[in-house]
């Protein structure tokens, strides 16, 4: 009989207010294993992870750690048992030094009770060197690149004694060399017998580093296999099931970007020359035509989202010229941008919606000055809201319902709807499908295509290649704030896109 696995879950179930998030799931993790966890948003990955990390308690089932039944009442219990977690949003203190971050809460003290700095730096240095990380322990955390910050957080979790570390989307913000370095560290730790749960949307990364992988769908296990026995198509099939043709295509195949017969003779709606702002982007020139979707792709932090914000006047560009329908415009604030015919849907839902206000107010806010000079016209606002609700099939279809009670996908539709009452000239979408499940993503694809066919000029800025590939007619790739390559009128695939970034 083989030795007991490090972690074993049997028939774990969890529901929230009557909705089953996990429906009796089995899961095992061996010592010295990297185990991939994939599935769409809402598939139950997060819930499982939170049960393991002690954030939630399971309703049913049992969890064994090294053969003993455990029941965590809090995240503290889980930490004490050697389970650590590295979130996508790093839990570091950016203003403190590397050494302080690594030894956070465990700083050595001298006889007077003060922090023993030389000892702390020496300990941190030794610990980081053992992990093969070359970094000055005195450096301020914020001064390091994101990838290094993440490795240091892993170092911290290890220092606190974790033998099992949950990594949530560890590669989403990393460049390829940073990913290589992360993987080297993980392999080294695996050889020492540490175990990892590797949660990711990036299937190539999962296939590259994991030993085994478990797929979740709708709160249940949809498959599990050794990585050597399967390929990406196998994973996608289990994640999304059949019938998601459009997205599968963008995941897997070569995409033929639209040729000159498309929009090439349409009028240029927005033209930028030499836009720049601080260190976030420089020397950006681009054009978008009516009826065209321009994708701007780059790794996280490459400047594409800053560029989108700048085009909408949120953080106005400091250099360069922006022309809309041939006329030079200076967008000093978002009101001017809106009046100039621009519309913007930001990447974070929180920053575009009024959760406590009813749907109709959320939709009318951006057109209020065209509906009402002085007196509001709530009847008209509700009418418009009803039209959008029907058009974009927003559920539940109640204009007076507080927006915060809608599901995420529906909130996203509301964020889009508020720009569609009077068609803008240019629609700027920042990460339009981030955090969405496949169904909602397809809705977005459909809506964007329809708007394009109606003659809108659309810019999609994203760090997710799938998003850009699924939506764009032409693609600009940004690297470190500059435009590195343009893909137009040719075939492109995910790997070529990544290679250009």
């Amino acid at each position, binding site marked *: 009989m083989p030795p007991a696995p490090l972690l074993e879950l049997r028939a774990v179930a969890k529901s929230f207010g009557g909705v089953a*998030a996990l429906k009796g799931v089995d899961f095992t993790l061996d010592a010295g294993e990297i185990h991939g966890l994939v599935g769409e948003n809402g598939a139950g990955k997060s819930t499982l992870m939170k049960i393991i990390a002690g954030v939630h308690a399971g309703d049913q089932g049992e969890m064994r750690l090294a053969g003993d039944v455990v029941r965590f009442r809090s995240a503290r219990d889980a930490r004490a048992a050697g389970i650590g977690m590295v979130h996508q949003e790093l839990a570091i203190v950016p203003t403190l030094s590397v050494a302080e971050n690594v030894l956070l809460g465990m700083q050595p003290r001298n006889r007077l009770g003060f922090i023993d700095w030389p000892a702390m730096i020496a300990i941190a240095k030794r610990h980081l060197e053992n992990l093969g990380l070359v970094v000055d322990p005195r450096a301020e955390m914020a001064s390091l690149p994101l990838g290094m910050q993440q490795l240091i957080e892993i170092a911290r979790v290890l220092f606190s004694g974790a033998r099992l570390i949950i990594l949530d989307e560890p590669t989403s913000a990393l460049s390829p060399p940073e990913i290589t370095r992360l993987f080297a560290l993980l392999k080294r730790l695996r050889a020492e017998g540490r175990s990892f749960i590797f949660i990711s949307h990036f299937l190539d990364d999962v296939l590259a580093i994991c030993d085994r992988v478990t797929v979740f769908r709708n709160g249940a296990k949809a498959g599990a296999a050794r990585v050597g026995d399967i390929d990406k198509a196998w994973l996608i099939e289990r994640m999304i099931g059949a019938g998601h043709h459009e997205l599968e295509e963008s995941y897997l195949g070569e995409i033929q970007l639209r040729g000159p017969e498309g929009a090439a003779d349409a009028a240029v709606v927005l033209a930028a020359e030499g836009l720049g702002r601080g260190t976030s982007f420089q020397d950006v020139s681009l054009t978008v035509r009516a009826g065209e979707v321009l994708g701007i792709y780059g790794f996280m932090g490459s400047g594409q989202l800053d560029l989108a914000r700048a085009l909408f006047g949120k953080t106005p560009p400091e250099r360069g010229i922006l022309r809309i329908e041939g006329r030079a415009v200076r967008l000093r604030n978002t009101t001017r941008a809106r009046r100039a015919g621009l519309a913007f849907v930001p990447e974070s839902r929180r*920053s575009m919606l009024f959760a406590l206000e009813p749907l109709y107010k959320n939709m009318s806010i*951006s057109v209020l000055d065209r509906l009402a000079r002085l*007196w509001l016209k709530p009847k008209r606002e509700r009418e418009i809201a009803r039209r959008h609700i029907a058009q974009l099939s927003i559920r539940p279809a109640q204009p007076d319902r507080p927006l*915060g009670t*809608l599901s995420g996908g529906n909130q996203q539709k509301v964020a889009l709807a508020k720009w569609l009452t009077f068609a803008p000239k240019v629609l700027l979408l920042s990460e339009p499908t981030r955090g969405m499940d496949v169904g909602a993503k397809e809705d977005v694809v459909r809506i964007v295509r329809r708007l394009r066919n109606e003659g809108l000029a659309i810019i999609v800025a994203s760090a997710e290649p799938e998003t850009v590939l699924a939506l764009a007619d032409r693609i600009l790739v940004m690297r470190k704030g500059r435009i590195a390559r343009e893909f137009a009128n040719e075939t492109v695939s995910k790997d070529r896109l990544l290679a250009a970034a």
Partner: protein
Amino acid sequence: MSKERAAAPASEPAPAARASRRGQWLRLRLRNIAPFATLLFLVALFSAASPSFLTLDNLANILQQISVTGIMAVGLTFVILCAEIDLGVASVANATGIILAYFTAQDASVNIANLPLPGLAAIVLAVFGSFCLGAVNAFGITWIGIPSFIMTLAMLQIGAGICAMLVRGQIAYAVPKVIAVLGNGGLGPVPWIVIVAAIVLALAHIVLTYTRFGRYVYMVGGNREAAEYSGVNVRAVIAAVMIISALCSGLAGMLGVAHFGSAQQDEFDNYLLDSISAVVVGGTSLFGGQGGIGNTLVGLFVLGVLNNGLDHVNIDSFLKILIRGLILLAALIINVYAQRLKGLPEAGES
């Protein structure tokens, strides 16, 4: 994650949820119900404790007592709905009142080197003065980026400085005729000051509820970033509310000077706390976006009934100060608590 948190109470009319529906309805309206219940409770309490409390005469007293605070609280309601604060209201009121007196011919016994002008000119200058103080606030907050808490703290001092410079420790008495009538006279049995306060409250209510600007105020307070991403000129809205607040303070200051019968340093010192209390006790959210003039009106009555009622029930006058502090604390707790309850469970992922 949409599936996992779809359990949001507000999103399902399941049989189990039916029972908690009413509880939820109450919870979401705690902000409006609690102040009103407090008011009823206080009225009942003082009516039982003193026969002289629940009379028409005393109601008239209360109305007069809350009128000056009420006008100031209107401006503050705009500011607090935008999730800003104005600590300068009382100081600006005092300064405006003194500017008005400064430009009015005073009795020979008043030892102030002033500059007598026709009544209308004095009024215009005083209003302009309060406008300028509001504009300075607006500039500091929206252009320089000074937090309103600090900016208006400076304005509090500036206003006090203007008062000190103009009256130099003396007391002025005369104000233009119109203001004297509005502050002290009456239309039949109803004091003008109460009528003015009622008109200001009503106008503010109409602006906040039925105009585009009012909607912008709520939306900026509800989610400033979202308002900006919707193309709302957030700076302009905040600048406007700071100026509205200063103008309301100015009006309150002018009428107050007439009402009290004198213009002097530190005359309005209690009014800062009273007007902020009225807005907050009434249930307008300190985090912005929730509440309104209706809340402020109830808050004004709670404070007015409390101040007035404590006079009727033979209580140690030093204890009264403590009681007011405790009431304010209770209101703050309810305010923050109501905010938390209203933080609707988000159906989407974070």
